């Protein structure tokens, strides 16, 4: 895709396709690998992590697909300064980012693989521009994390649980807080707090992490499922507290043209805990 008026738009040997897009590439730390002529496969990481979480799954498709990985703004190597309270106050904002990535790289006939909250983000994007999407793989999707007793909906959490998560984030991000840094630095008793942190993957700006957590866990996209026209594969893990079985069933029941596959993998991240099973399931369906 030519962008003649973009001065930064020069061929770059480090990029497999010769172009470095100045907008989404930098904003979302987009990486393009795999087979340049293959069908595009876009991997979207879920809440709490970054594109690294696909490292055990994505390579399996490198021969057949053009692999597109990226970080949501606020996560991983994304451009923190691009974070906009208003834009990212709903999942639609994140969905727009995905569509912009597709536009900038002229990606069509896309297989979209979304984990956790990104499964729903992908659904929103596919509703908005169905012509760009061929298939969706939804890994541990949930349209609503909070229980709605009056509607007989079990999402797995209460509002208080989400508040507890935010506390938990506070505890864990304490040392990362940019606003707190000067205070900590001035404290000779805790010199180690100023050092590089060991948990180097999945770095997240703490303020954004809290906001993203709110958007993720307080969204309600149940009504959007019905509007999806793209074929979708639902990968449901065993014993997933974030997206329990009943949520997977709900998504399957309310999504037209969807396939539900149960994995033996436990927990919320089969792409890490059971990459082979995940890959097999995806290949079988694709």
């Amino acid at each position: 895709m030519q962008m003649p008026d973009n001065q930064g738009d020069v061929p770059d040997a480090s990029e497999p396709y010769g172009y470095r897009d100045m907008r989404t590439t930098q904003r979302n730390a987009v990486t393009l690998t795999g087979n340049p002529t293959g069908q595009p496969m876009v991997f979207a990481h879920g809440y709490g992590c970054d594109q690294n979480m696909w490292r055990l799954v994505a390579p399996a498709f490198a021969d057949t697909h053009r692999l597109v990985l990226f970080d949501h703004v606020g996560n991983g190597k994304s451009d923190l300064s691009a974070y906009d309270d208003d834009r990212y106050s709903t999942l639609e904002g994140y969905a727009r980012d995905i569509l912009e990535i597709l536009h900038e790289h002229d990606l069509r006939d896309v297989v979209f693989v979304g984990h956790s909250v990104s499964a729903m983000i992908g659904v929103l994007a596919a509703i908005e521009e169905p012509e760009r999407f061929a298939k969706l793989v939804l890994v541990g999707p949930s349209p609503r994390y909070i229980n709605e007793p009056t509607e007989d909906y079990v999402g797995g959490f209460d509002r208080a649980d989400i508040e507890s998560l935010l506390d938990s984030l506070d505890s864990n991000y304490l040392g990362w807080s940019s606003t707190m840094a000067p205070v900590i630095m001035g404290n000779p008793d805790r010199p180690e707090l100023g050092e590089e942190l060991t948990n180097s993957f999945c770095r997240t700006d703490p303020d954004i992490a809290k906001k993203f957590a709110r958007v993720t866990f307080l969204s309600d996209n149940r009504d959007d499922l019905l509007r999806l026209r793209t074929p979708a594969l639902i990968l449901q893990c065993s014993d997933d507290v974030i997206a329990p079985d009943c949520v997977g069933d709900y998504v399957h029941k309310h999504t037209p043209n969807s396939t539900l596959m149960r994995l033996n993998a436990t927990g919320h991240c089969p792409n890490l805990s059971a990459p082979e099973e995940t890959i097999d399931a995806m290949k079988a369906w694709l």
Partner: protein
Amino acid sequence: MTQELRLPWDEDPDDLYEHAPCGYLTTLPDGTIVRVNQTFLTWTGYTRGELVGHRRFRDLLSSGGQIYHETHYAPLLRMQDEVHELAFDVVCADGRQLPTLVNSMLGRDESGQPRAIRTMIFNATERRQYEKELLHARNIAEASERRVRVLQQIVADLAAAPTEAEVAESVVRAPEAAFGAASSSIYLVDTERDLIVAVTSTDPTTGNWDDMPRSSARAVARVAERGDLHVVASLTEAKQHFPDLVESMRRSGRNTVVLLPLTTGPTDEHGGVVTLGVLAFSFKGEHKLTDGELRVVRLLGQQAGQALDRARLYDDARRREERSKFLAETTGALDEVHRLQPRIHRLLDRLVPEVADWAEVRLQVGAVPIEEPKGTPAPDTELLMKRVAKVAASGEPIFALEGDPLDCSVLPLTARGLVLGTLALRMAPDRRDAAGERVFLSDLADRAGLALENARLYEQERQIARTLQRSLLAGDLPSGDNRFAVETFYQAAGQDLEVGGDWYDAFLITVDKLAVVVGDVVGRGIDAATTMGQLRSAVRALASNEDGPARLIEGLDRFCERVESARMATVAYAEIDLTTGEIAYCCAGHLPPLLQEPAGSPEFLMHARSAPIGSRAGNLSRTEHRRRLSAGSRMLLYTDGLIERRSRSIDKGFEILAREYARRRDAPLQGLAAGLADTLVGKDHADDVCMLCLSLGTEERIERTIGADRMQIALLRADLRTWLVAHGVGAECRDAVLLACSEAVANAIEHGYRDDPFGMIDVVATVTDDAVEVRVTDRGTWRGPLGDVSRGRGLQLIRESMDQVLFDRSDGTTVTMRRRRGEDDQ
């Protein structure tokens, strides 16, 4: 290489594992606990049996921790095989939460598959406590920063807040943003009424919203009086110092109330400080304000006070300006309408709802008392009547005071020292303070009184003028003489304009001499009407058989010496000798008469022109012009209202008049003038229109053309009747001819022109010594047999009433009817 120091006893590795200073957990990759040490069990209160093989590490975490575990811990561990210092709250057997820090390592087998997770758990109670303090410190730092930001924002807002209300709105939101207060309210000091009034609040359900006197014992009033910040830190303190706060604090669950006077004036000494209002804000639970916060609070009070002071001055100036603008506009608006009732409505429209939500004008003078209310709801009638009577009697206004049961101010409407009536108002909610608007209201009533009195006088005068004019123009005009016929028309100018000075007149000087006149007096109103009457009488008195028009106009010139208001009046005057058909006319500054002789085009009579009556600079040599008119001539006298329009030149007016007049040359005389007025002037006219049309002599042969409109049959009949009478045709024959002619025309309309509303019908009648012949011609297409039921009777009537009837259908249809004159003919 240093040598390891030998311990004095043998370290048992199992004991070291079990009683290490940290918890150990070994779990399967899915988190299922397979081994746990005693330290962890001791800390958490679980038994080994409860955990091993039954629980996963995840299960021991708080719900938020579980999510964090799934979204952060587990993926991280898989990716980097170890995680460090993650904070989790472990839920103990008794439900207590144990703050911990967790390090985990993922062990893999030879093939690289995850085999087990080893987790070390540190009791982080102390550290987490410390971190909480850090967090707290951060929050304080952030709060301080936020306070400064809020204050900056408020100072910026205040600078842009031009009114008290906007200042109050800006300030009232500050305590929540800056100090985390639960709610806050603003009270303003009203020095004029010596009150303190609550104006706005973020939560109106708290606190006492009644107005209070400045001397009140209530906390707000006391603080306003002292002019210094007061913090009521607890219910106990409130009980001691401000019992009035206790109840509302209890009710709304507040334990700390801050009362901040909003002050202006020098800040260092208390003497010069003026309190303009009080900001009260409160906290749920007892809230200790730090010195830093108190400094900011005081600063807020000063900033808000200054802004209030500025807003008040600004409000004052603006209100003064608004009032004078309103008064000026009201006076202007009232001047635009002249009549009384519209002026009263104008006044009420100005007042309601802008100034008052209810207002009423009562006028006691004049034949019928006027009572015009506007707005809702109406106040108590009995109370109102009492107050109105009092004000009408004393001529002094009574203003509604605080708590007035009537809630209405009543002001006298006076003019020239006389009380005409009263103006009662209940002020609009935003200007309730009638007492504060005394000057404004009095000024308003003064202007209204004068305006209404003027309207009343105008109304009176207008009424008299109209009556006078109507009585003058209604005088009997000569008729019944078959040698002439006179048609007159008068149309007053558009509504609300004063009566004009146009007039017409026709009278017989002798049995054989007819005088016709149309004139126009300068000006409008009662003076013009009176002068018109005087001139009209003067013309009648001056007209004589011998003198002629020129002498008569000279007489009018002399008349002006005594009746100044007649000066510059214009007159067109003509005398007609009914035996010879000779006309003598004279135009004194008036528009030329328009003559239409039976043969030829219309002609303006341009001779014998001179200056208006009594003109000082104009040509006063009065001459007259004589000419003989053939029988059937029509002469039109008119005033300028007929042809003068702002949108066209007077030449154009003459041209149109001549054209329209010619077009109607064959139209019946009756309705001719009205038709002209309709075409030339229309209904919306700015001037009076006055016309007199004289039809002279008897035509031997009458030719009329009428439109295919059943309404016109009666007009034609009237003309024909006059003509038949003039020729001495007897009643029986006349009735028969009229009937036959009407039926023939009706046939033409209903049959010939059934599809053509614009068709024209020609009627020609001739009279000889022994017969009357009428010919009715249309150019329409008759369809079907003539003998249909309804029209059949018409044809039958024609045949029965006439002696000879002839139909010619060669070009349209011509019915020729003839009847012999009877014995009763003259």
